[in-house]
């Protein structure tokens, strides 16, 4: 029963990656990232039950706190201040083409892993599936980074790549906690970078509100709150 639930969640995670490549509304993109992280939490919990490793519960809790609630709230706050609603610009590949390429990517990863990881395949097909999907997510996130033009979408694509790395770590390696921690550090750097891009390298985090107002990116009535 539990392996089936994990399998369903894995497939839905890839579908959310597909939505990332084709979604046009920015709020939908953030919601999509949240659903992806929730699915990741479910997968981690499921694995914890199957494998009987309580460490995974901790990872699930950490993911819940940081990726389901923390980061999306931050991004949403930025979005509400900057009055951008939509990202309809694509470069190189439109959504349909990008989805075709993703199918090809998943196929390629499956074929390569089938050759390299026979031992894992023989042992437990769930783990094989998880590793394939993890790497596919990373590549699809990279595809999102290169085919979407707006920087915020690129950031979400990068976040999705991190999710993919985490997924791969959950299934294949023995030290998922270290991976999670390193990812958290990465994400903190990412948040700093976003601030940098928005307000310039010589500002501090407190000053960014003032800067945004100066660049007329901060709407006045909300700035006054």
């Amino acid at each position, binding site marked *: 029963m539990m392996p089936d639930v994990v*399998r369903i969640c*894995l497939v839905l995670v890839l579908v959310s990656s*597909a939505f990332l490549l*084709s979604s046009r509304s920015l709020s939908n993109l953030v919601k999509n990232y949240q659903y992806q992280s929730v699915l990741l939490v479910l997968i981690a919990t499921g694995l914890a039950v199957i494998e009987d490793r309580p460490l995974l519960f901790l990872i699930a809790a950490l993911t819940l706190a940081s990726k389901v609630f923390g980061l999306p709230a931050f991004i949403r706050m930025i979005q509400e201040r900057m009055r951008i609603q939509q990202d309809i610009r694509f470069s190189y590949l439109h959504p*349909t083409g990008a*989805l075709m390429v*993703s*199918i090809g990517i998943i196929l390629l990863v499956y074929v390569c892993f089938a050759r390299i990881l026979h031992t894992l395949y023989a042992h437990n097909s769930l783990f094989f*599936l998880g590793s*394939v999907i993890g790497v596919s997510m990373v590549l699809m996130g990279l595809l999102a980074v290169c085919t979407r033009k707006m920087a915020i979408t690129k950031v979400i694509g990068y976040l999705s790549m991190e999710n993919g790395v985490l997924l791969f770590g959950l299934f294949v390696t023995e030290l998922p906690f270290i991976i999670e921690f390193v990812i958290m550090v990465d994400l903190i750097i990412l948040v700093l970078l976003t601030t940098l891009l928005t307000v310039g390298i010589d500002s501090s985090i407190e000053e960014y509100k003032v800067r945004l107002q100066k660049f007329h990116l901060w709407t006045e009535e909300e700035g006054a709150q």
Partner: protein
Amino acid sequence: MNEFSILYGFLNISLVLLVSPLFMTVIKKVKARVQERSGPQFLQGYYNLAKLFRKETLYSDYSSFISRIAPYASISILLVAALQVPLIWVPSQELVTGNIIVFLYLLVAGRFLLALLGLDSASTFGGMGSSREMSLSAIIEPVTVVVFAALAYVMGSLSIPEIFRNATLQFPAFSPTILLLSISFFILILVETGRIPVDNPETHLELTMVHEGMLLDTSGRNLALFELGHAVKQTLLMAFLLNVLLPVGMVLDVSVSALLIGGFLFLIKGLGLCLVIGLFESSLAKMRFFQIPNLFMIAFFLSILTIFVEVML
């Protein structure tokens, strides 16, 4: 072909004809309730059909034999397709071949006749509806065939009664493939019956109509036959989804009590699915026509992924 299968034929067709207008009206009622209106009464579908059958039929003076034969041909095709999809009772010997590919192509035949009807009366609305319907069906067809092929692969047979029988015997075997296929199948139902977000079945404005545009010039008994056919198609696809996902109440050995219980359970399942469809329709807006292929690509992606998962198992 023995007397049981002939009895099955009668029962299946009568049940489909009886239940289809009810399902249509229930969806309308659910959408109306969400919009805080009271909506039509439950028997309104039947009253509408009766009213239409009593009215005069008008034909355009430059329409051809297509307008005369398309209503009868379309509903006959759908009724023969209904013989292939057992709603409650899966007979041991089939009346008409239950091959899934024949079912698919019969649905295509119905759509073809409707598209020709749209072009027949030389009206712009008909041409528009025809063009859009054909374009959308061109894009959804790969998804449909892949979903049916995946279903045949998982259930191990190309025959629809066989598939239902295997589903009954294995129940409850919620393989992830079946649950994921149901999502694709649900999107398929929305497309085939022309519901939001693909088409709006309630308006007659040319900006939002695909299916209604082709029927704009029909009236009287022809319109009644088309409405009934549309409802029958919806019921057949719903029955497909329900009997694969939740095969409770399917009857393999016939007896009167089993049939009654099966019928009752089918009604409950159907009304549940109507509720889900109505709520889903109310929560979305109709998509721009040229964005619809994106939705289909996602459905295609999901179906392909489902088969990958099954293959990588």
